[in-house]
């Protein structure tokens, strides 16, 4: 007697057990603590918070641990948690002008008010493996140079703004921004919606698209006007109070790209902006985001849309890690029924094809 394949329940349970075992690894090795992840894997935590769109270092660390270090999986865990949270309040716009800066650089001016501050950066490290770290030794902790945070300093774009050489900051617009977690995406999308989507988008996707604009696919002559990293206060206005109250501070990385623009019917030649913002120290993503933001403004600025990075539907609808990873991996699910349908169809087509060929060779044989 044939017994159809059964045992889905048991198979799933076993798979989960194996997964837990693999996550833990060799039990002779001490278990990873969330504090360790939170304090020593900070850039992983930053990325998971950014693409998970939830600022919570503890939960991000938990997600990374649970996901065996797979950041996409961790992002997914955090998102699926975030989506169930009640919306208690909406914060006031972040005043990144008042950022307590630990890093601030501009590629456009050699020196400027506030100065250039390298801060903690890989930029000028030699990428040589440090075997001292491998030797289990406590990594040498250098003396902090100057622990005092810097004074808030003016933005590079504000300096250009004074001269009228750059388009005015669009933040002056009071329109209520859309909310991509509460409204379905509809195209064409406005800039607020685009920026939100980019902020959650996969870093690799944005990096590649931003890179493509540098290589001539929608060239926009970018300059890194300013990159700043630091902490900023988050404020809400409780209804019962009616004035802003600080509820804490978060670390962000912000990038303003300055791009050439030759002018159009309504606007004079001037510099335009691309904007990027991430949680934590996500500088590379903030830069990529700024490049792509600028590329996506082609329609608004009356530029020809010729390259992938300018194609709003293409860029926005394929950048979400959770969406793309889920749908790609759904190919693992059974498709017996669809495949069976195709199998029946191909067999029939094949039979017809063979019959035709036989008929033809028969004709030739008679000749």
């Amino acid at each position, binding site marked *: 007697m044939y*017994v*159809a394949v059964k045992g*889905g329940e048991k198979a799933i349970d076993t798979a989960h057990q194996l997964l837990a075992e693999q996550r833990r690894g060799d039990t002779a090795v001490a278990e990873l603590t969330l504090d360790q992840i939170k304090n020593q894997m900070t850039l992983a935590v930053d990325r998971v918070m950014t693409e998970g769109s939830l600022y919570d270092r503890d939960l991000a660390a938990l997600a990374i641990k649970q996901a065996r270090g797979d950041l996409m999986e961790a992002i*997914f865990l955090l998102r699926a948690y975030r989506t169930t949270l009640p919306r208690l309040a909406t914060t006031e716009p972040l005043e990144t002008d008042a950022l307590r800066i630990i890093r601030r650089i501009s590629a456009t001016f050699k020196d400027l008010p506030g100065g250039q501050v390298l801060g903690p950066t890989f930029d000028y490290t030699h990428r040589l493996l440090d075997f001292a770290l491998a030797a289990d030794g406590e990594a040498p902790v250098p003396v902090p140079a100057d622990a005092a945070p810097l004074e808030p300093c003016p933005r590079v774009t504000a300096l250009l703004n004074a001269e009228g050489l750059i388009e005015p900051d669009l933040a002056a617009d009071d329109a209520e921004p859309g909310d991509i977690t509460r409204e379905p995406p509809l195209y064409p999308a406005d800039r607020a919606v685009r920026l939100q989507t980019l902020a959650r988008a996969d870093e690799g996707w944005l990096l590649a698209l931003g890179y493509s604009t540098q290589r001539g696919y929608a060239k926009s002559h970018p300059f890194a006007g300013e990159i700043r990293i630091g902490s900023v206060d988050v404020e809400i206005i409780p209804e019962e109070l009616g004035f802003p109250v600080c509820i804490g501070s978060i670390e962000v990385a912000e990038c303003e790209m300055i791009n050439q623009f030759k002018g159009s019917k309504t606007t004079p030649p001037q510099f335009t902006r691309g904007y990027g913002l991430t949680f934590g120290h996500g500088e590379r993503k903030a830069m990529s985001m700024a490049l792509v933001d600028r590329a996506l403004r082609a329609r608004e600025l009356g530029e020809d849309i010729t390259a992938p990075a300018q194609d709003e539907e293409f860029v926005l609808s394929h950048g979400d890690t959770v969406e793309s*990873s889920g749908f790609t*991996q759904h190919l693992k699910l059974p498709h017996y029924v669809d495949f069976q349908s195709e199998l029946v*169809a191909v067999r029939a087509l094949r039979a017809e094809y063979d019959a035709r060929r036989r008929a033809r060779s028969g004709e030739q044989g008679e000749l």
Partner: protein
Amino acid sequence: MTDTGYNYAYLDEQTKRMIRRAILKAVAVPGYQVPFAGREMPLPYGWGTGGIQVTAAIIGQDDTLKVIDQGADDTTNAVSIRRFFARTAAVKTTEKTVEATVIQTRHRIPETPLTENQIMVYQVPIPEPLRWMEPRETETRKMHALQEYGVMHVKLYEDIARFGHIATTYDYPVMVNDRYLMAPSPIPKFDNPKLNNSPALQLFGAGREKRIYAVPPYTPVKSLDFTDHPFEVQRWDDCCALCGATDSFLDEVITDDKGGRMYVCSDSDYCGDRRAAGHVGPQGVDADAYQRATAAE
């Protein structure tokens, strides 16, 4: 609140209300894709998040849920989704089509006819039937609004020109209520006739694409075709090896590495019912032996 620390049926009540509004609109305009703000779910996109959100929004404690994938209740993803609702909604689950009030499905419609007391929830990967001819949403929305569906027939024309008959076998496009072109989700075209004038409410959820659409009870659903090449469903020369059914969708099972194969019902509940009632296929066993075998499991 259930023991999971999440709201009943996972989603918060505001989200459920938002989804119900989308469902109401979908029912009011049969076949029209209603955009909704789909949420991240704890299951991956492409694995049924649209269907799960629809089910979560409509399910209540009095409901009995059946979940099938490829027609079967025991495929892993069906098990996983059924467990999810058992855990978060404390809902009764069943494998019996006749007992279910809500049936969530991926890729099949049960063989047992549906009733007015049932709601079908389809998991939809790509809700846009025009997507393969026109990838742009801005353009396809316009095509739906203007009922510009000629291009869909171009595809069918091309099939006939090339193969002599329409070669689309699943996710076969349908016209709902003589107005909207609709993707029935990747069910085999064998199931398309069941969509037409069904007594059950049929809801379609696409989570990643954030669309909900519906076919209300007793709505005409017509599979596209040509007058001289009418719509046809798949037929098999064989019957189900276990229950002998000749009227059901059959899965092919490879039995050895020498080309041996058999056909069995894709709808495991239907097949089981038939066997319990004494129908025996060429490789099946009689009802008593079947009862003993299933009891032993």
